[in-house]
């Protein structure tokens, strides 16, 4: 601490000032990474687009019935900014509306993935012994089973709905988070302050809540940010294979419809280009952002 800082009296104030300093340090490091800042800006842009979609998009433009009078396969530029599809629907409207499902599924399934992975990782790492062996065996099983085939099987069996997709993605992608969290818990568990808390009579729950969780949280956050792009890509692939929610426009569904309608052989690039570019932009932005977070929060990676 700098010598001219005010004398701190209470423990709470000390904690607050340390947290503030740590956060300022984080922001300083983050701002140095120009790619990560770009990623964040892109994400905020797409997030706003997804939130405002119900007001920006003319919902009639999404239904095939309301688009009967529109020209089909119209190129971009004319009356429709990004052209129309095989049913005369506006590609631009579908693009804006489609961002909602991609982002929603990406975020929700990540929340679920992280929740399952963290609970398994913390329980396995903290309680050790046979709990650890059983949970890690289970994790290994899920880790080896190929991800997309399992997702395909689950999605075909469960049916097509947005929550089913979220569940499928979470149930297939939690193992790597569980392993990461477990290894971090194992190192935290051996620290002196945990021994000290135990000696003072702290319960297991207290130790997990006050000592283990805060130490594992940054890592969980970084791994969550890196899980989002994978979730988004999986959602897109499932939708492309015809396993997405049939009632909602999504980027993956647009690509599926474009492919099924023969957009490639017609040379209707405006139909399948925007949705793909949207996916690439969001996934790349999340990846850049997540890597920066990971580099800052995980000291082992700082010198890379």
């Amino acid at each position, binding site marked *: 601490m700098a010598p001219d800082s005010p004398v701190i009296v209470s423990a709470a104030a000390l904690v607050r000032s340390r947290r503030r300093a740590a956060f300022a340090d984080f922001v300083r490091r983050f701002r140095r990474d120009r790619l990560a800042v770009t990623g964040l800006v892109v994400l905020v842009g797409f997030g706003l687009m997804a939130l405002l979609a119900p007001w920006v998009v003319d919902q009639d433009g999404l239904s095939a019935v309301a688009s009967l009078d529109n020209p089909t396969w119209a190129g971009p530029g004319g009356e429709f900014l990004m052209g129309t599809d095989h049913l005369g629907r506006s590609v631009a409207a579908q693009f804006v509306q489609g961002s909602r499902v991609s982002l929603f599924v990406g975020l929700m399934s990540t929340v679920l993935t992280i929740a399952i992975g963290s609970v398994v990782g913390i329980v396995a790492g903290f309680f050790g012994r046979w709990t650890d062996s059983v949970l890690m065996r289970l994790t290994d099983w899920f880790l080896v*089973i190929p991800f997309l085939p399992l997702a395909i099987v689950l999605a075909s*069996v469960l049916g097509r709905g947005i929550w089913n997709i979220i569940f499928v993605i979470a149930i297939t992608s939690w193992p790597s988070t569980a392993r990461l969290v477990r290894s971090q818990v194992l190192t935290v568990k051996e620290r002196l302050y945990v021994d000290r808390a135990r000696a003072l009579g702290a319960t297991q729950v207290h130790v997990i809540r006050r000592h283990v969780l805060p130490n594992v949280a940054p890592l969980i956050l970084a791994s969550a940010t890196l899980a989002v792009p994978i979730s988004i890509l999986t959602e897109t692939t499932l939708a492309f294979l015809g396993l997405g929610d049939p009632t909602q426009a999504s980027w993956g569904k647009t690509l599926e419809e474009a*492919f099924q309608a023969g957009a490639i052989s017609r040379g209707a690039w405006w139909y399948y280009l925007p949705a793909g570019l949207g996916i690439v932009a969001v996934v790349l932005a999340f990846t850049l952002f997540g890597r920066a977070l990971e580099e800052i929060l995980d000291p082992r990676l700082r010198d890379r």
Partner: protein
Amino acid sequence: MRPRFVVGKVLGALSTLAFVVVVNFFLFRVVNDDPVESMFRGRNLSIEQKDRLRQQFNLDGTRFEQFAAYVRELLSGNLGVSLQSRRPVTTEIGEAIWPTIALVGTATTLSMIIGISIGIRAGWRRRSRFDVGSTTFSMFTYSVPDFWLAMLVLGLFSVQLGVFPTGGLQDAGTTATGISLLLDQLHHMALPCLVLAIAYLGEYAIVMRSSMLDTVREDYLQLARAKGLRDVDVRRRHAVPNAVLPVVSLSALNFGFVLSGAIAVESIFSWPGLGQATLQAIRGPDFPMLQGLFLLFSAAVIVANLAVDLLYGVLDPRVGGR
């Protein structure tokens, strides 16, 4: 290698395989309690006919008797009958497996060779122009959905430019044999293979690069330099052989992803492999076929992982023991 290490790995793989078989059976039964009922929905079958069918599909008896019957059939190589073609699933898979092996094998080899070479160069000269450029490129390919890349490539090279066929294993009604047939098939395989290779080389490059960065700091590299070895020799003889190990284990995990990637990419190029078979099975839905494919994909990945684990034990004595 220590025998204990080998036995442990083999047992681990077997337990995973057993888990997959259990999942594979119960997953389809949970939803589909009576496959005969849903398979012949809308058709007037007498009770006796249904009973006969149930017996045929091993659906009489309790859940556990059914499971035992499923395992018995599995061990004798019977995966059931496809609902769509009414042919045994093993026959369907047997026909579709070779195009996929050719495609996925070539694509994996290409993406490993290119990805590893990029990673070596990028990691050796950190923050160089090549490093920054190739890392950006790798992140980009990692973010591109493989099937979208396939659509772009198909639209550009096959439809607009017309330099590659639009799909299939070979020209329709071709009478070519021998070398010219092979060339024709390679011509058809070029685009899907290119797409899969590009989609997966980024990850190899990134992992190889960070492994190189770890290796560069090791003492034995300092020693090699101090001996007066040329830079090229330090890299080739001392850095690369050690740095390549993590990439070896990545390749097995990735094998599952490449197989998965092949599902969408194959259907775009109408490549008659397991991917296209999967898509058709989803459309059905053809549950026996999906079950068989899932089992095959999982077994392939499990075997690949076991092979790599054992190979790792040979390559790195610290892991496998002498």
